[in-house]
Structures are given as structure tokens and as C-alpha cells.
């Protein structure tokens, strides 16, 4: 069985290696340390996820520093955050090794150790938010995750000065969001007298608490909801995302797109279902309709705007806005199938977007940029990269056989179960719009005429595939995982997502 200290190690390992990297290592060694640490974290997280499967009640609790909860800080892993932890750890373990060339091209050599140090601290933040059972701890780690993210985005400045503006915009919006969250958590502390999330949830259920401070609770709810929406970039709080993803170095976009917003979605689920509870969030407050409307607009507008982009990174960024809409939609449906759909979409989008940004990184590394106009005939010149792009795009569309189909099936059936057929139509029309922007990428890759002249500057790189093991392989691994999930090998993932959803939305008697 799992060692009792594993939950702490998940956070402590990248924290220590991150500091060590920044202080003592240089150049490629720094990257090697980051890679090793990400693999170690993955091993720890998988171990932890197995432990959760077998733990009584499906919960592993760890008292940090030996102070028993609710007084001390508790790390609390149930099926929900085990699922998200696995996503974050897998993405870290695959993206980090694939990021070296892209980062070396974007960051000056004398800053590499700082970059990789910050990269690992970013992981600390994301893993920590997910694993902790303490509301204030969520805020602290969210700030660690955010501050490091601003830095990582700003690292794009050496290639693209606009990265600085994007990072600043992200910083302003992120700080506003974090402040909302902090004040909201403060109100909750005032009402419940505790910061432990499980404890908070229990106190909020007590009728006298609800009677005495209903207004404070509602205020806390609104503040936290606003803060979380900013963090997960849900429409209309998405404005920081396209710039940040488009101007950051491609590997950073790959990491952020596949983990940062996902952790935001996790925090939303945790607060809505785990702390405030489904009854307060969805039956006494109109969260469901609000979320559904925001999600619908995000899906439709995000996809439409993605169709209009010519820069691939910007296209993928707008597509991310839309995909976050799908997750918010599943959360807003407040049913078992809806939540399972949201979780599965979280997983599949992390894999697919990570793979796509890595492939775009491979294109940028070769071509210097990645515009849809430059893709003509690349299917023959860079078949692996083009294959990853194609599979990823099909995954975004949700073609049967990809994991995207599975999550959309859950979302559509969940909406229809509640009679919300317009919501189902939005999901499906969103897929159709995704097909439109996917075609913008896939068609030039493969359907270009044979006599098309090679792209500008091809002479410099010989019109060949990017280095396989360092740039192409990680994207292939993610594509293979996504295909596996779509082709019926994802039973365990679907089972875990359904179990996590059932924990949060217990089946009620009768349909």
C-alpha cells in the first residue's frame, strides 16, 4: 500500500526540486531536473489515485505537520481530485520533456534555470490547489500558481513583445479574481469559523447557520463564483486567455491550456458541490441557468472566433474558451451525467490541447510561426506533426473514436435527461463549428496539390520533420492516450469520472 506521506510529497517534491533548480543548476541540467521531478510526481500521484480507489469511503486524508484537521491544514484526496491530480500530473510529465527545444528557442540561455525553476513552482501551485482540503490553502496555492504563470507567459517576450502586455493583462485579471476569492473565503471563515473545506460544508448545512447569516453566505458565494470564473476563463471573464496563450512560448501554452484552466474548473466544482453543496448552489440560487447561459455563449462565440483566426496559437486559444464552456455546461447541469461529462471533457481537452500546442510548438520551431496559410502540404513534409494536429483537431470536434465524442455524449444525454434540448443543441452546434475550424487546419495539411512550392524558408530547415524524440514524441503520446480513451480503452477513466460525479451528486430515489 501507499506510503502515508505520499500526499505531502506530491507538493513537496516539485517545491524542493524547483528551488534547487533555480539556485543550483544551469541550462540543460535544469530541464533534466524538471523532467525527473515531473515523472516522480506522476508516480506519486498514480500511487495516490490507487490508494484512493481502495481507501474506505474513497478518501485519503493527510494532516500536514501532524496537526489534526480541522485545526491543521488537511490534504484530502477523494475521487474528484484524484481524477484531476492524475490529469495535472500526466500533462506535466509529458509536456515537460517535450518543452526543452521550444523553451531553449524562446528563453536566453542564462535564464533557463530560472525558467525551469518557475515551471516547477507552477506545478506546485496547480497540484497544491487540487490536493488541499483547506480553503485558505487553496487561495495561497492559487496565488503561487498564478504568479508563476504570469512569469511563464511573459517569457515569450524574447520572441514576441506582445507577451508582456498579455502577461500584464492576465496579471490584472488574475489578481482581481484572486482578491474576490480571498474575500469570499474570509466571509465563509466568518460564518463557519473554520477553513477546512469538509468542515465548512458541514457547518453550512446546519440550519441555524443558514438562518443567521444567509446574506453573508450568498455574498461569499457570489464573490467566490466571480473569482473562480476569472481563473477558469469562463465567458465573460475569458478576456485574458487568448492573448496569454497566443503570445506565451508554445510549451507554456501547452502546459497552461491543459492544466491551469482545468484546475480552475476543479475549484469551481469543489466550491459549488463540495462546500456550498448542490442544494444551496443550484436549488436556492440560480447558478445553473447562469452557468448554462455563460457556457453556451462561450461555446458558440469562442468557436466562431476560433474559425476566424489565422494564427494557430490564437485559434487554439479561442477554441479553449469554447471548450471551457463545455466543462462549465456540465457543471451547470448539476446531474451525475453532466458532472461526469464535465470531468471527462476536462481530461480529454487536457490531452488534446496539450498535444495540439506541442505540435504547434514543433511547427514554430521549424517555421518560426504557425499560421494556417503556411500549412500547405505539410502533411508530406512533417507527417508526424501533421498527424498529431489532425488527430487533435478531430478530438476537438468530437468525432466518434476520439475521447471528445465520449464527453460530448455524456453532456448531450445529461441535457436531454432534464429536457434541456436547447443546451444539447448548443453542444452539438459547437462541435460543428469546431469541425469548421478543424477543417481550416486539416485541409491544407493533406489536400494541397502535389506541385505546391515549399513554404518560405524551407531551404533553411530542409523541409523535414521536427526532431522526433524531443518535439514530436510527447504530442504523439498525448494523441495516443486520447485515441485510447475514445476507442474503448477508457473504461477506468470513465468509471472514475462517474464515481466522482456520484460522490458529488448522490443518486436520489426514483428518476
Amino acid at each position, binding site marked *: 500500500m501507499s506510503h502515508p506521506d505520499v500526499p505531502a510529497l506530491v507538493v513537496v517534491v516539485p517545491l524542493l526540486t524547483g528551488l534547487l533548480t533555480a539556485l543550483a543548476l544551469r541550462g540543460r541540467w535544469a530541464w533534466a531536473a524538471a523532467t525527473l521531478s515531473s515523472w516522480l510526481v506522476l508516480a506519486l500521484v498514480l500511487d495516490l489515485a490507487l490508494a484512493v480507489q481502495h481507501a474506505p469511503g474513497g478518501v485519503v486524508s493527510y494532516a500536514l505537520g501532524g496537526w489534526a484537521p480541522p485545526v491543521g491544514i488537511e490534504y484530502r484526496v477523494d475521487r474528484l481530485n484524484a481524477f484531476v491530480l492524475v490529469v495535472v500530473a500526466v500533462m506535466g510529465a509529458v509536456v515537460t520533456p517535450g518543452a526543452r527545444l521550444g523553451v531553449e528557442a524562446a528563453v536566453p540561455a542564462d535564464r533557463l534555470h530560472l525558467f525551469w525553476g518557475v515551471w516547477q513552482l507552477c506545478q506546485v501551485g496547480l497540484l497544491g490547489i487540487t490536493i488541499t482540503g483547506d480553503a485558505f490553502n487553496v487561495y495561497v496555492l492559487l496565488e503561487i500558481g498564478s504568479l508563476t504563470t504570469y512569469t511563464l507567459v511573459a517569457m515569450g517576450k524574447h520572441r514576441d513583445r506582445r507577451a508582456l502586455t498579455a502577461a500584464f493583462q492576465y496579471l490584472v485579471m488574475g489578481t482581481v479574481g484572486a482578491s474576490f476569492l480571498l474575500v469570499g473565503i474570509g466571509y465563509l471563515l466568518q460564518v463557519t469559523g473554520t477553513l477546512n473545506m469538509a468542515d465548512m460544508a458541514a457547518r453550512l448545512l446546519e440550519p441555524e447557520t443558514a438562518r443567521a447569516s444567509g446574506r453573508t453566505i450568498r455574498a461569499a458565494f457570489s464573490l467566490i463564483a466571480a473569482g473562480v470564473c476569472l481563473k477558469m476563463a469562463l465567458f465573460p471573464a475569458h478576456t485574458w486567455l487568448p492573448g496569454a496563450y497566443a503570445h506565451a512560448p508554445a510549451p507554456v501554452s501547452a502546459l497552461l491550456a491543459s492544466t491551469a484552466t482545468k484546475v480552475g474548473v476543479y475549484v469551481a466544482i469543489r466550491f459549488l458541490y463540495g462546500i456550498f453543496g448542490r442544494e444551496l448552489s443550484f436549488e436556492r440560487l440560480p447558478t445553473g441557468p447562469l452557468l448554462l447561459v455563460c457556457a453556451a455563449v462561450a461555446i458558440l462565440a469562442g468557436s466562431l472566433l476560433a474559425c476566424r483566426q489565422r494564427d494557430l496559437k490564437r485559434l487554439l486559444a479561442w477554441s479553449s474558451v469554447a471548450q471551457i464552456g463545455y466543462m462549465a455546461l456540465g457543471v451547470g447541469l448539476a446531474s451525475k451525467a453532466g458532472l461526469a461529462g464535465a470531468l471527462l471533457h476536462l481530461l480529454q481537452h487536457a490531452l488534446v490541447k496539450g498535444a495540439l500546442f506541442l505540435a504547434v510548438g514543433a511547427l514554430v520551431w521549424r517555421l518560426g510561426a504557425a499560421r494556417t496559410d503556411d500549412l500547405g502540404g505539410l502533411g508530406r513534409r512533417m507527417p508526424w506533426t501533421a498527424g498529431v494536429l489532425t488527430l487533435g483537431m478531430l478530438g476537438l470536434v468530437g468525432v466518434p473514436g476520439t475521447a471528445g465524442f465520449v464527453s460530448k455524449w455524456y453532456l*448531450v444525454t445529461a441535457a436531454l435527461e432534464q429536457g434541456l434540448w436547447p443546451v444539447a443543441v448548443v453542444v452539438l452546434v459547437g462541435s460543428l463549428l469546431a469541425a469548421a475550424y478543424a477543417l481550416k487546419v486539416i485541409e491544407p495539411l493533406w*489536400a494541397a496539390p502535389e506541385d505546391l512550392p515549399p513554404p518560405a524558408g524551407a531551404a533553411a530547415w530542409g523541409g523535414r520533420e521536427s526532431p522526433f524524440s524531443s518535439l514530436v514524441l510527447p504530442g504523439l503520446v498525448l494523441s495516443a492516450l486520447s485515441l485510447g480513451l475514445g476507442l474503448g480503452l477508457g473504461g477506468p477513466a470513465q468509471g472514475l469520472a462517474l464515481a466522482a460525479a456520484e460522490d458529488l451528486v448522490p443518486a436520489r430515489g426514483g428518476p
Partner: protein
Amino acid sequence: MSPLLLALALPVAVAVAVVLLGERRRDAREAASLLGALALAWVVLGTLLPDVLAGREHVLEGPALIDGLPLRFRADRLALVYAGVAAALWLPSALFAAGYMRGHHEGHQTRFFACFALSIASAMGIAFSDDLLTMFVFYEALTLATWPLVTHRGGPAAARAGRLYLGLLLATSMVLLLLAIAGAWVHSGPAGARSLAFVQGGFLGEAPPAARAALFALFVLGIGKAALMPFHFWLPAAMVAPAPVSALLHAVAVVKAGVFCVLKVAVCVFGLDVVAVGVGNGWLLGLAAATIVVGSLVAMTRDNLKERLAYSTVSQLAYVVLGAALGSPLGALGAALHIVMHAFGKITLFFCAGAIDVATGRTRVSELRGLGRRMPWTLGAFTLGALSIVGLPPLGGAWSKWYLGQATLASDHPWLLGVLLLSSLMNTGYLLSIPALAFFGAPREEPGAGPPVREAPLACVAALVLTGAGSVALFFGIDPLVAALRPAREAP
């Protein structure tokens, strides 16, 4: 290995073999296609068909894409109608394609033959699917596998046609059809007891009538491959593809997949009795009748041969939809027969169009004047195919139209018989005028216009003679076919 799994895996294996052999070993590559087609025909017609007729149904369960919804396959009589047609016609198509692609000096031939085989694999998946989700998976696979074939020529015209093709087929299937399937799943029963498996007589008996009518409309409109107006534009657009694609896919595999799915949904999701009274099928009968007439009208105005044939296909497909929408066993029988008959007739016509293109480079009807004396085999086969589409004996098409006509008379809408007769008349006008022009028109020989026209390569001519003869054979061999399908019509 079960023959069902073999039928699904064989075309995939052919695709892999084609890619591995590649352009350098092109003879071996074409041999792989031909051998695969032969083997598939043997598996489907020689093994599965006798087994099913003897009452031994084969089933197969694949991996579960969605938790609790495994891919499920079953070989039954209706499935074998479509699978049998697709498998039987792959062989002449592979033969024809080998002659055509070389005679026409097409590029990317390896990709072409690989995608061709994958399309057949998808068709097999659709034919043998035993639930709606499986059907949808292979339906989408067929769209994606045929897209590279449609855009095969490259260039802006092909790209535009490809976008229209994908756009219409994906829009209907991803929005309407998937919504219909999800709706059918939710309405199939209470949570925990839901199913998407096909059942003779349907599984939506418990659903409220309004939901059932809405689902029926979503299904019929969502199956865009049936090319019911106004969702038919993808079919004429797909004619930019090389002739073998138009022949096998856009006269047989893809469009028949559409009408087969409509028929299957009518029989096994709703049940014919429900279709007849419980889903408001009147609008669909009207739409199908309109498609029949308008399709024929448009076909009369087209001078491009393949385009004329495409609109003729639009019109003929609506016959099958009409048969399914009547909601009577007789209508379903006529619809199933029409899938077979039209397949043999139309593939012959497309082979002829391709052979004329290869031999002379002519693509317009008006250019065919007097060609009959130069290409007697080709235009002779064309005449047979056209007669079959019109529905005259001694060709197979006569039977399907006979049963469909009977079904309309027995239904509440006997006026539909008038539509069928009118359409046959129009078919005569725009199809039979072509061989008439070719055989009896004065040849237009410009002096010094190059060597005299000769028949297309042997592979092409052999293929079209084979399918043309098939149309005749189907007229005389109709009894076992009807006998085989009759139990299906007697089923509850």
C-alpha cells in the same frame, strides 16, 4: 475467426496492405484490393448469407466507447441486403478502378485505394451495426474516409466540393442525428434500463407521441446521406471525385448507407406500425415525393453526364425513403429491394460514364452523339442500367418498383403511385435518351481529331458488363431475394 469479424476486418486489412505495398509495387497493390474484394464477397455472400438464411444469426461485441454501450454487430437479413450489395460490387469496382486510375494517370493512387478500402470497412460496420451508437460511429467514419476521395483531384474546385460534402454531411449527422440518438437513448426507458439496441418493432414504444414524432423527424433529416431534399447538395458536389468513387460510393456505399439507415431506423427503432400511424409520416411522404419529382426534373436539365446521374440518384434514393416512410411491410420490402436494384443499375451507369471519360475524355451528354458504334459494349451496358433504373422488365429495377407501387396502393396515400409513374416517365426521358443519342445520332467526327475512339481498358469494360449482366440476372433471380426478405416483413 467469426465470419462477421472477418467481414469487418478484411477491408481494413486491405487498406493496411495497400499502404504497405505502395506505389512502387502497384500491381501487387491492386492485386491486394482485388483479392480482398473477392474474399469479402465470399465471406458475406458465401458464408454469412447462407448461415442467416438457415436461421443462424451471427453476433459480435466490440469495445465500449461509452461506459455500458459496447459496439455491437449482428448479421441479419436486412443487414445482408446492404452488406451484400456493397461487398458484391466492391470487386467490379476494384477492377474498374485499377483500369480507370491508370488510364487517367491519377496521382496519390495508394492513398486512393487505401481510403477506398476504409470506406468499404465503414460500410460493413454500418450494415452489421446492431445499435444506434455503432451505426453512428461507422456512419461518421464513412464520411471521413470518403472525404479524401472526393477531394482527390486537389485544387480549388475539389476543395470547395469537399467542404460542401463534409459540411452538409457533418452538419446533419453531428447536430440532428446525434441529437436524435441521444434523445432515443433518454426515451428508451428509465435511467439504468436504457438501450440503443435495434429491436424488430422498435424500442420507443414508451416515449410520448410528441417526442416520438420529433425524434423521427430528427432521424430522417439527420441521415444526410439519404440525400433527401433539401440536404442533397453534397451528392452532385461529390461528383468531382474520380469515376470509381462516384460509382461505388456515391451510387452504392455512401448513399445506400443513408437509405439503409433510414430503413433500419424505421423498422428497428420506431417499428413499422408506429411509423404508419404514430409519428406523423405524412410530411415525409410528401418530401420524398417532392424529391423524386424535383430530382428527376433537375436531372433533365443537366448536360454533364455524371451530374445528371447524381440527380437521378437523388430522385431514386427518395424511393427507398418513401418505402420506409409508408410504414408497411410491403413498403419496407420494396425499399430493401430498391437498395439492391438501384445499386446494380446505377453503378453500371457510372462505370459507363467513367469508361467514356477514360476512352474519349468526354463528360457531356451532348458530346456522346454517335459514340455507340465506337463503344458498343459500354453503351450497351448503359442501356441495361438505364432500363433497370426506369423499371422495365427484364431488368431488376422492375421488381422493386412493382412492390413499391403495390405498397403505395395499399396505403392511405394511393396518389403516390402517380408520382412513381411520373418519375419513371421522366427517367425514360433523361436516361434512355443518352444511348438513343449515342446509337442513332450521326457521329460527329472532326477530320484529323486524333486516332479513332476505342473502347476503354479491358478492366473497365469487364466491370461494367459484369454489373449490367447482374441487373438482368436480378430480374430472373428475384424469388429467393423476396423469399428471404419476407420473414422480415411478417415480423411484428
